[in-house]
């Protein structure tokens, strides 16, 4: 494992996450370019069989411990640090998901090495690893080098297609033991997502609103547009946090991942946390007053305009078109 590229295999509720396969796909590319091994480290409790799904890696190290049943950041980082102590990789990739958030930061501290957050890609320049990072809400791209190795890289979801990180190969699986102290943080229970009045994942058309909608009073504009298109209204994080829409309407990291035929993003800046949940939509149209809003990097069509002015005009145009079609 020393000198390898290493990926944290994130398991949650009995499955390996999509973000893990994405990380394996990137890790495989980097490991092959460097001519080194790709290793995955899986932590869990009675979860050894999940190692078989990590065939993109040459070697899977499985760590079994009751405290690792859930990915609690501190016990998980401690376990990883113990595994890596004598077998230091060149890079350790941790998916930036709600399951693993904090693990990378803690692991870097524990190893006394550099952590780099917000990565979307890894390059090799003159034999050195460079992380390409998306920061400032998606507006800025930074190329970052660590002073030393191993470097712990937090990887945004979507870096590579997950399919590229799946393999039917059987990896070599080794078990490692760790010694952990009791955790002062314990999971009591999971609370399932509340079923809303509308299941966003089953809609062909979603009209999603962000901060640019400005107030709850303006939601009616988005509802009218959604109605004209035969779809439903969704929201980005700030809209949900303001209480303007229920949790069941949230798209993004902590909400739902959707793939409608049409996704209309109104006044949504396009932070990576939101894009993660809608980037696979078949057709994406974005309206935003900021010409540099990162949502235009993922949209197929973009309109730079005041959303509050644009929505009613667009709704009227669609309704007119439909009326013509009905009478044709």
């Amino acid at each position: 494992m020393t000198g390898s590229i290493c990926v944290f295999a994130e398991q949650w509720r009995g499955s390996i996450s999509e973000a893990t396969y994405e990380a394996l796909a990137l890790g495989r590319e980097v490991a092959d370019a460097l001519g080194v091994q790709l290793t995955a480290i899986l932590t869990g409790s009675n979860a050894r069989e999940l190692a078989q799904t990590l065939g993109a890696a040459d070697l899977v190290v499985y760590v079994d411990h009751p405290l690792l049943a859930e990915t609690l950041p501190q016990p998980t980082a401690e376990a990883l640090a113990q595994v890596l102590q004598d077998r230091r990789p060149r890079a350790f990739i941790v998916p930036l998901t709600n399951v693993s958030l904090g693990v990378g930061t803690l692991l870097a501290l524990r190893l006394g090495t550099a952590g780099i957050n917000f990565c979307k890609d890894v390059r090799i320049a003159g034999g050195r690893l460079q992380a390409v990072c998306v920061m400032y809400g998606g507006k800025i791209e930074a190329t970052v080098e660590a002073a030393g190795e191993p470097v712990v890289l937090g990887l945004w979801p979507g870096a590579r297609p997950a399919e590229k990180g799946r393999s039917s190969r059987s990896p070599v699986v080794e078990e490692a033991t760790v010694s952990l102290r009791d955790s002062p943080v314990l999971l009591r229970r999971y609370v399932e997502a509340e079923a809303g009045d509308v299941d966003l994942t089953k809609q062909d058309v979603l009209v999603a609103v962000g901060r640019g909608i400005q107030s709850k009073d303006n939601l009616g504009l988005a509802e009218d547009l959604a109605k004209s298109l035969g779809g439903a209204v969704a929201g980005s994080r700030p809209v949900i946090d303001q209480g303007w829409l229920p949790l069941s309407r949230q798209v993004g990291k902590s909400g739902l991942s959707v793939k409608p035929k049409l996704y209309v993003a109104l006044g949504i800046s396009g932070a990576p946390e939101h894009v993660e949940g809608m980037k696979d939509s078949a057709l994406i149209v974005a309206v935003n007053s900021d010409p540099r809003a990162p949502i235009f990097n993922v949209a197929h069509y973009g309109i730079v305009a005041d959303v509050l002015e644009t929505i009613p005009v667009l709704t009227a145009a669609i309704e007119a078109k439909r009326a013509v079609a009905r009478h044709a």
Partner: protein
Amino acid sequence: MRILVLMKMAPDVVEELEIAPGGTALDLDYVRMILSESDDHALEQALLLKERHGATVTALALDAPEVDDALFTALAKGADRAVKIAGLDAGFPTSQAARAMSQAIAQVPGLSPADLILTGVQAIDDLDGLIAPMVAHALDLPYLGIVTRLSLDASGRTALATKEYPGGVRGEFEVKLPAVLGIQAAEKPPRYVPVAKVRAAMKTQKIDSAPASLPADGGCAAAQVVEMKRNEPAGHAEMLDGDPESVSDKLCGILTGHGLL
């Protein structure tokens, strides 16, 4: 119950961001600094706990442009004390911010022992890691992030924290106090405070200042930015230009072409 809220200023990304000459950092002359959004939620959650359980709330921030406004706003909203850590270079990385905060918590009179340390789950410029786990590591305290709901048991020794998982699933955690929690969102939107009340706080209350004390070597391995630029990938949207009517017509044509109308 003593609650500390760790606050950091971050660039307002609604404004245009300029890259500094040299091409490895933002040009701070053109940046408007605002309180990091999730830190605002951390402050709100602390104030809600104060109202529910009785507590003193101290807002601790690193010196940066506009930080006095953020700290006086915290006082006007109901924080009991505001402390500013001075002496860090502009554009300091998150790891340095976390070390300066951890040192201040240990050294500034009245800050420790704290029962609960709240901060935002993540800031948009946390390039080398997150504040909450860094401070938890430095102070050897429990950590949990992405918290959206928080209550305390009667003894004040345990918190019940709700953490967000993917797909709208939530996890309920028992956390032994003292602990450091990264707040994603408070139970209610951050409260509004009129400017007049902030001005009144400026006249009647004060911000305590403490010097940053950092190890000479910076204390940990560094991540170095070798290039910074605007995020403009090749796959940019095709832009539709014109007045609202003509743009709407163009879009209707596109939607019809895709069989959506």
